[in-house]
């Protein structure tokens, strides 16, 4: 298990608690999503990575998600598209 906690806090503005839980979620993503995360950390542009009609770029621009949350979201959309769309629309 790779530890992303420090980088989530220092580079992506996560609180300690958010980083601890998100680190677990990142490590539990499928291989494709983990490789996208590694590309991001290497400085690559990943905004076009998508599942069905939703891309990382869309999630960042239209849903105001951080790029880390966007990667997590693509991973979740692959598992349960309709269910996770409800989660994305629950921002209240």
């Amino acid at each position, binding site marked *: 298990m790779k530890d992303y906690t420090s980088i989530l806090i220092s580079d*992506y*503005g*996560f*609180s*300690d*608690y*958010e980083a601890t*839980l*998100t680190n677990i*979620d990142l490590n539990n993503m499928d291989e494709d999503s983990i490789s996208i995360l590694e590309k991001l950390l290497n400085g690559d542009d990943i905004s076009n990575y998508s599942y069905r009609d939703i891309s990382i770029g869309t999630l960042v621009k*239209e*849903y*105001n*998600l*951080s790029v*880390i*949350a966007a990667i*997590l*979201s693509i991973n*979740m959309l692959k598992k349960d598209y309709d269910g*996770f769309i409800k*989660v*994305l*629309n*629950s*921002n*209240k």
Partner: protein
Amino acid sequence: MVSSAAGSIEKFNDTISDRFGNKPVSNSTTSGLPYASSLEEPYVLQRDIKEMIQSGLSAIDRRVEAKEDDLKNKGITDPEALNAMLQQFRDECEIEFYNDVYGDVSVKCSECLKKLSQHFKKSNWDRMDSLEREDALNTLALSAGKAFRFDVRGVRFYNGNPNSRGYYSGDGYLYLNSDVLSDSNNRLDAIDTVFHEGRHAFQHAAANNPNMYSIDRITASQWKNNFYPNYIRYEQNPMRYFSQPIEVDARTFAETVIKNGGIV
């Protein structure tokens, strides 16, 4: 959503309460319905409620004293155990008492919605202009505040991303995306957001004074901890945001109120 996560949002400063001092200036409406804020509410003297609470709490003090004597007579003398039992007894008494005074929060909120059901029925909502909708939502929020046992100052609207539906900032106002005024398809979402954000305000209050809001200490402590330091922002992890206790509670609460509010 709660305050810190609201992000940079352009707010409307000219809300209905700012423009009209809580009441629209004209009685004529596009829909032909009266403004929701013009419907008369029964007037309750705050002094009467305060007196009722004072005498009720005094009665609870006497019950706790009697309980202490009873427990001591039964041989419970360890101070720690005795205090824990008495605290639990006092909590139960106060929770029940405040529910008797104010009524169940969820039931009372559904009653608020029922009283305004004329305005929130789809066929009427569709005919209302944005000013009427603003007035109806503001009236609903003020009315819900009484059910929540504190003063809600009203609703305010912001121009936000369509995926951002609302937030509570801690200033007494409930913030809703302004598209609920312009798009009649957002009727249920608007009502849901009033009760969802109102519930967040309630959670804040109950976290610090659980008995007065008829919430048990375990739940209150869980909420307090969730607000700080364990709040998870939507924009950092939507799934964890969705699953945290205060969000689950606010969603369930709003769904229940609407289900029992007679407008669907």
